[in-house]
């Protein structure tokens, strides 16, 4: 079972992700901010992280940069209310980008795609 870290400042969104992604068979751990995410990352390892970009007074992009540097083997999907970040350089570090929607199909597809790619890489020994 793949273990996902979901970082979002909205409690209801964290709940929605937890429910929906758990239904898809993932183990979901949530965090409301960077500090909480960092703490959880220290306690456990994750197969993938889903990050919101706007985290109250923080930026998910900062966390993304930190993860790319420290956890380069863990893919990250950015999930944001803003479609404009999709073409932003800073967002290009992420393995996937999904615009927030009540329909989580795209997010679920993206998670599956990125995990499959990661598995392929591991298989290939890269």
């Amino acid at each position, binding site marked *: 079972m793949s273990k996902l870290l979901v970082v979002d400042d*909205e409690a*209801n*969104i964290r709940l*929605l992700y937890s*429910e*929906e992604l758990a*239904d898809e068979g993932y183990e979901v751990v949530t965090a409301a901010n960077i500090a909480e995410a960092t703490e959880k990352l220290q306690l456990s390892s994750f197969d993938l992280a889903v990050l919101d970009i*706007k985290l109250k007074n923080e930026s998910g992009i900062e966390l993304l940069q930190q993860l790319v540097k420290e956890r380069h083997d863990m893919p990250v999907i950015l999930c944001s*209310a*803003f*479609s*404009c970040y*999709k*073409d*932003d350089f800073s967002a290009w570090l992420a393995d996937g980008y999904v*615009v*927030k*929607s*009540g*329909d*989580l199909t795209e997010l679920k597809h993206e998670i599956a795609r990125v995990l499959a790619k990661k598995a392929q890489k591991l298989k290939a020994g890269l």
Partner: protein
Amino acid sequence: MDWECCWDRDVIVMGDCPNIHEGDEDLLTSKRRRILEKCSECENFKRDLVRFSDSSHPLAPVFYLVHSEYQRQKTQIQSLVSFLDNKTLEIRFMHELGFVLQSSVDLEEVLSVALTAITAGKGFGMNRAFLLLADREAGLLKGYLAIGPRNLEEASHTWNEILGNDMDLKTLALNFRQNKLSAERAKFHDILEQLTVPLSSHEHITIKALDSKHPMLIEDAFHHPDVNPNFAALLGVDTFLLMPLISRNRRVGLIIADNCITHRRITDEDMHSLETFSFPVAFAMERASLYDKLQIELNRVTEAGKKLKEQQELIVRMENMALVGRITSSIAHSVRNPLMIIGGFARSMLKNTPSSDPKRDFIESIVAETHQLEGVLDEILNYSDSLYPTRDFWDVGQLVESALRDTAEVLMTRGYASGYSSENDLPAVYIDFKQLSYCLRTILQSDINGMGDDRTIAVRSYRDGEAVVIRIEDRSRSVSQAELDHILVPFSETRDLGAGLGLALCKTMLDKQGIPFEALAFPETGIVYTIKLPTHKEEQ
């Protein structure tokens, strides 16, 4: 005693006096005037005077003395009158010159007046004049302009022409400026070029004259110790005048004048007159030159003012845009998240609600409405995003390939195939990458209904003059030109928000970047989109 002269007769007839000619008829009957104006110079009268002196009359020596003194004073008066006449002419000329010079701030006009004044018969009557200007920045005394004939034939022609048209100085100068200035400059181009001397060459005769700030008359130039023989050979005359032009103690330039055709002697009087003339000329030249500089600065200031105004307007626009950005950002966060939560949980509930449950319809309505609202939100956010493009130079291949990559999955799901071909070595294009990327994705994923079996989209990029064209041939979709034009109008009457603002938004974005966008519908073969991307900033 019989007198030889007619001084003792009250009335004479023509022929009695050898000094009275046609036009002097008044003197025939005016004895007094005849004696005063003609007799004192008359040889007959002089002989009568000798005879009178020999007559031993006591008044004879006195009369002889008075007559001699009268003659001397008359000559002196005539000389003074002649001198005063000359001075009057000179003052009139200087007055006219001063008036013309003072009324002009155009350097070319001032120079035309100056050179015309030196060479005009009504002016100083020199045959030829060269004007050299001090270029302080380049450190050179540069040959700038010349006037005068190069040979006798040309001189005769020019002087006859001037004599034939009785023109004042201003008209002469205007005529020179309008009709002859360029030709004269070209005529003396070779000499003017060679006359150029560094201002630091203090041994050169021209710089010496300039440094001394006083006119120099050079005679026997070919053997003059201070004159370089090449310089004398260049001018081709052995006598010339060097007239420095000094204004406010600053070296403005130098005039070289000579009488290369007539070889008339240049007198001290010529020098003094020219020196007097040189002050207002130098002053007018400096003033015109300063005026030119002032005009340039004024233009710069005007241009800067214009730019400043544009910048101010831009700042206001950007502030407005920033405000729009902040508002949309706020909307994005404030609206999208609740929408997502409502829609997300509604979907979750729907999954676990049996089809027989009467509440399922309500939940389905919530899902559909939130989906619709999310569509509206996307369009509003994309539209506001289009208001402030951020342009830079980008690779077209990268742009098209990333758009094709992003849309590949959707196109595949819909049963479309896409292909891309490009000319080699295309230049970078100056665009807002994000917006162009959005446009390409939108065109590729257009919601216009597909048709037929040939569901292919061919993308090609190629150079067209200074631009790079992206041509997208969508052979799978059918629409009339009128409908397509309608689709390209944002928020048009028949299209509701959330019903697909995409192509209209693309057009708006491209219009705002000044990028030509064309969508042509061919009912039988599909739609062809062409986007002409600039390769230079100026084309924006």
